[in-house]
């Protein structure tokens, strides 16, 4: 019995290895036969294209493909990190609103959730992009909602510590700018993910048994104090695991940026693949990066979950 198991396991392992070997060697042979370059040497070559916005890194067309991909990765991180925070805040607020005693608030929150999570994200991204990029006035007719803040189809411009935005030639110069692509992507990801988070929060809170709330009230805790000290700690145990998937979703969905021109990792990798023709390497990089990000988020959330469970 034991022997037979070992034989089966070994046979399966060999079969898997053979299939993997077949794919790898066949791909290599096909690439060779078609004289398509392979390997990662291209990462050090000059990229030659510009990137619309950069986070952390300075980048110019004279830099390498590797650096360009780094900029794309940083842009992905930026939108995902800010998106996760904002989606959590908005999602929790809406989730609590769905449980509110106020009929109007409850109804509005329910409408929001049902509407937003039932429209495909890509459509919502186009909606936000058209709203922001294609309906706002040009930079010469920019709106000025607050002194020093300008709103136009080039983006939203804020003053920072060193300078204020000034219209110079085609565009505003100085200050801090949010591009329409970033703003649209962030708005789309946050509003979409928040709808799912709201439902998770609501479910988590409703799962705490009614007796706990009653007991808290009987002890003289206010509604707010009962929520904070009795309901939330228990609800979090149920909320954290599905929340992890929402954070993962948001991060992975950020690759839809390519449709509205935000230079995220996928967009830069696509351009790189086209300029170099090395699609297999490009896709491998994208897969490795998303796998790393996703596993990191999972690890972090598992750690947090373990903490919540202990408390």
């Amino acid at each position, binding site marked *: 019995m034991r022997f037979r198991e070992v034989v089966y396991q070994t046979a399966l392992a060999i079969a898997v290895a053979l299939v993997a070997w077949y794919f790898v060697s066949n791909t290599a042979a096909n690439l060779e*036969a078609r004289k*398509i*370059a392979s390997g990662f040497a291209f990462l050090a070559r000059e990229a030659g*294209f*510009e990137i619309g916005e950069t986070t952390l890194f300075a980048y110019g067309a004279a830099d390498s493909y590797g650096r360009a991909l780094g900029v794309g990765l940083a842009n992905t991180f930026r939108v995902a990190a800010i998106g996760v925070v904002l989606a959590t805040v908005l999602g929790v607020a809406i989730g609590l609103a769905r449980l509110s005693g106020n009929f109007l608030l409850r109804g509005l929150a329910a409408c929001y959730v049902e509407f937003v999570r039932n429209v495909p994200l890509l459509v919502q991204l186009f909606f936000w992009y058209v709203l922001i990029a294609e309906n706002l006035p040009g930079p010469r007719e920019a709106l000025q909602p607050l002194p020093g803040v300008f709103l136009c189809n080039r983006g939203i411009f804020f003053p920072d510590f060193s300078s204020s935005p000034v219209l110079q*030639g085609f565009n505003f110069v100085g200050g801090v700018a949010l591009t329409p*692509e970033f703003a649209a992507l962030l708005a789309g990801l946050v509003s979409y993910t928040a709808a799912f988070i709201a439902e998770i929060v609501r479910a988590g809170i409703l799962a705490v048994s009614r007796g706990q709330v009653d007991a808290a009230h009987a002890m003289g805790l206010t509604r707010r104090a009962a929520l904070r000290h009795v309901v939330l700690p228990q609800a979090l145990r149920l909320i954290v695991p599905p929340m992890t998937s929402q954070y993962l979703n948001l991060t992975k969905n950020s690759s839809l940026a390519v449709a509205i021109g935000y230079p995220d990792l996928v967009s830069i990798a*696509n351009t790189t693949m*086209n300029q170099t023709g090395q699609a297999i390497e490009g896709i491998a990089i994208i897969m490795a990066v998303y796998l790393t990000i996703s596993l990191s988020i999972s690890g972090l959330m598992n750690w947090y979950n373990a903490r919540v469970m202990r408390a």
Partner: protein
Amino acid sequence: MRILAMLLLCVAGVAQGQSTLDAVKSKGFVQCGVNTGLAGFSQPDSKGVWKGLDVDLCRAVAAAVFGDAAKVRYTPLTAQQRFTALQSGEVDILSRNTTWTVTRDTSLGLNFAGVNFYDGQGFMVPKKLNVKSAKQLNGATVCVQPGTTTELNLADYFRANRMSFKPVVIEKLEEVLNAYFSGRCDVFTTDVSGLVSVRGSRAPKPDEHVILPEVISKEPLGPAVRHGDDRWFDVVKWSLFATIEAEELGLSSKTVDQALGSKDPAVQRFVGATGDVGKMLGLDNRWAYHIVKQVGNYGESFEANLKPLGFERGINALWSKGGILYAPPIR
């Protein structure tokens, strides 16, 4: 799509024995990769029939191989999808206003069969910006499609002239044009042919947009095939040359039937009345006759597809008429 093509690369056996020409003959049609919709080059008309200069090249190859220009199936490809589609064998020819460069010829594993349109990159701006020269574009926001030589030339040009710009990079032509026409960008850049085509066919008000005088690059556009299949390469190359040679010989779709009885030896060879050029290519001896009869010569194709959009022959005229189109002798 790209991933699908990559999978094909992984799974497909190494097909060395069979040439593309045999494969095409046995399946009965030419699979041709074309643009998703660029007026004058490849675009389906109101009845869904593909029309354009690049489409005519596909039809010419089908006429040469099968004696029937209709035996083509089209695969619309974005700029990003095109090379993988050709490499993986999803299409037999890539005829999609593609610039011939050394990188594409070598590390992408392509062979360019020639040039069917000599182009150059230009800039289009709204008239109301009052820009007269590309040198005034410092600080501008520029709409551009990714994965093109355009994107690289753009960066080169601004670097060479010590100017800065903000690119807005969107893959789909429709989306990138929406961004430009709605004012998200100050400038749209692509090959001048693309600018003329887009202004004529997509602009809400064509006369509100100007194409700046600077042409910043050489863009020889032509059909490409896979490396390492010389017979198929020859067929595509000489199908293109045949359309140019026909114009030079004065043969058109209307006159080629009379030419069958011509006494001119060059014409006799061309229509296959004498010699065995067709056999050398692995085709019917009347291959070139079929091309001209069914598709027409290069000039006819240009007149039908590009003239209505406002294109001039310019350098795309025959060498004997002040242009640079030149076909090697068919003999």
